[in-house]
């Protein structure tokens, strides 16, 4: 279970998060929606300890993440970054197997490579990309490699930062299904950031909308369409008319 209590973060004078309260149960798939630049990525990075909040507490299974021992804490997580964040100097399979080639999860090279290729296949990539470098792949393929890397060590908690942005609709569908599968099969807890409403409907158990530094609305996916929040319904409809200013 992940719990954010009153988490705030400002960069200089720009207040990005202004007291976030959110609870994600174990094995649940939470989708975070909200406009670009509202701080969705910052929020996930706070949970991982990549950005330290100015105030507030973040708990993982009741333990304060700031006090947790880093290595075992991070071993529970997998993260797909918004831009893929693949290491340019390593081949695709070495990227995917990064965790399996060093540190506490280290295993023989052949085995790590086999796992990497199997994970690549799960995200719809064939074995012949394994020895290529990330720069040789298209943006969508890089995203999928990032996804394979996030799930390679079978983490308990997975964060997906805009997993389908930049993919064609069919590939986006494949990725949505895959995320759903990972959550169901691995029993993983997932937090996904997306703007893509098709994705939201395919992936989410629960939805939370971030607006103006706070969680504007949160609830089960089934209640999303009937919710009376004008901000949420404007976002779902994708309308320029409504309380959310289109010019930011």
């Amino acid at each position, binding site marked *: 279970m992940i719990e954010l209590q009153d988490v705030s973060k400002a960069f200089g004078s720009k207040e990005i998060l202004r007291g976030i309260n959110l609870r994600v149960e174990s094995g649940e798939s939470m989708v975070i929606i909200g406009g670009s630049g509202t701080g969705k990525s910052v929020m996930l*990075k706070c949970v*991982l*300890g*990549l950005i330290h909040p100015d105030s507030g507490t973040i708990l993982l299974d009741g333990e304060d993440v700031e006090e947790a021992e*880093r*290595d075992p804490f*991070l*071993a529970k*997580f*997998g*993260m797909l*970054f*918004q*831009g893929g*964040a*693949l*290491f*340019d100097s390593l081949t695709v399979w070495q990227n995917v197997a*990064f*965790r399996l080639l*060093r*540190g*506490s*999860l280290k295993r023989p090279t052949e085995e790590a490579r086999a796992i990497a290729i199997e994970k690549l296949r799960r995200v719809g990539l064939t074995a012949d990309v394994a020895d290529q470098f990330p720069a040789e792949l298209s943006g969508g393929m890089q995203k999928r490699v990032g996804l394979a*890397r996030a799930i390679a060590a079978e983490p308990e908690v997975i964060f997906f930062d805009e997993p389908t942005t930049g993919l064609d609709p069919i590939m986006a569908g494949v990725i949505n299904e895959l995320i759903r599968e990972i959550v169901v099969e691995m029993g993983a807890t997932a937090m996904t950031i997306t703007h893509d409403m098709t994705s939201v409907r395919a992936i989410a158990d629960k939805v939370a909308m971030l607006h103006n530094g706070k969680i504007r609305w949160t609830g089960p996916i089934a209640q999303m369409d009937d919710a009376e929040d004008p901000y949420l319904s404007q976002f779902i409809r994708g309308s320029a008319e409504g309380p959310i200013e289109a010019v930011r």
Partner: protein
Amino acid sequence: MSFLANIGAATLGFIAVIGRISIFAFQTVSHHVRPPFYPREFVHQLMYIGYLSLPVVGLTALFTGGALALQIYSGGARFNAEAVVPSIVAIGMVRELGPVLGGLMVAGRVAASVAAEIGTMKVTEQIDALVTLSTHPMKYLTVPRVLAATLTLPILVAIGDIIGIMGGFLVGITRLEFNAGAYMSNTIDFLETGDVVSGLVKAAVFGFIVALMGCYHGMHSGRGAQGVGRATTNAVVSASILILGSNYILTEVFFSA
């Protein structure tokens, strides 16, 4: 008033940077002795920082040695001391010009590329990705580069010294009518172990500075392409100034007694 305030703010900012760099240097050193280590990264950096800097350092030394011989010959001629050319070329190269010019050239090559590489990694979230993959960026990125530069710069400079002395020798025997055997024996007779060792110690310090500045500015790069560009410039400038400053201090330490 705002003029004074600006000076005050700049001074405080400068002191803060010195503090941050000192802490960064201290952390880097402390990570050298705490596992995990990444030997493959280290070997890769040895290759990149050491071997591939050889042409730059070698050419710098060759031309400098040659120019030095000409200068000392014409300067020495004013008081009939042309015979000091071989020994002064050797001492000048080994003690001072070899390490300093070698260090500055490597600063241009290595500090810039390290800062650009790590800065790009920072901007494209690769550093964040490293952390989430349970890998400490300082151990994985900084330590291999700093260690490789500290160990290889003395070797590069030693080779540069030899090439520089060769440059002086070639100019001496072709342009200045020195006898080859006499030039050589003059060089060898006058050069002391202390000269060589002090130059190599300087080189090791400069290697540490170059890689440290590259890593520091890369890790603290601002956002976007502009941030990386600024980090690269800052890395080269600060490495060069620190090399010249520490060169003076080391020279005091070695030779003022």
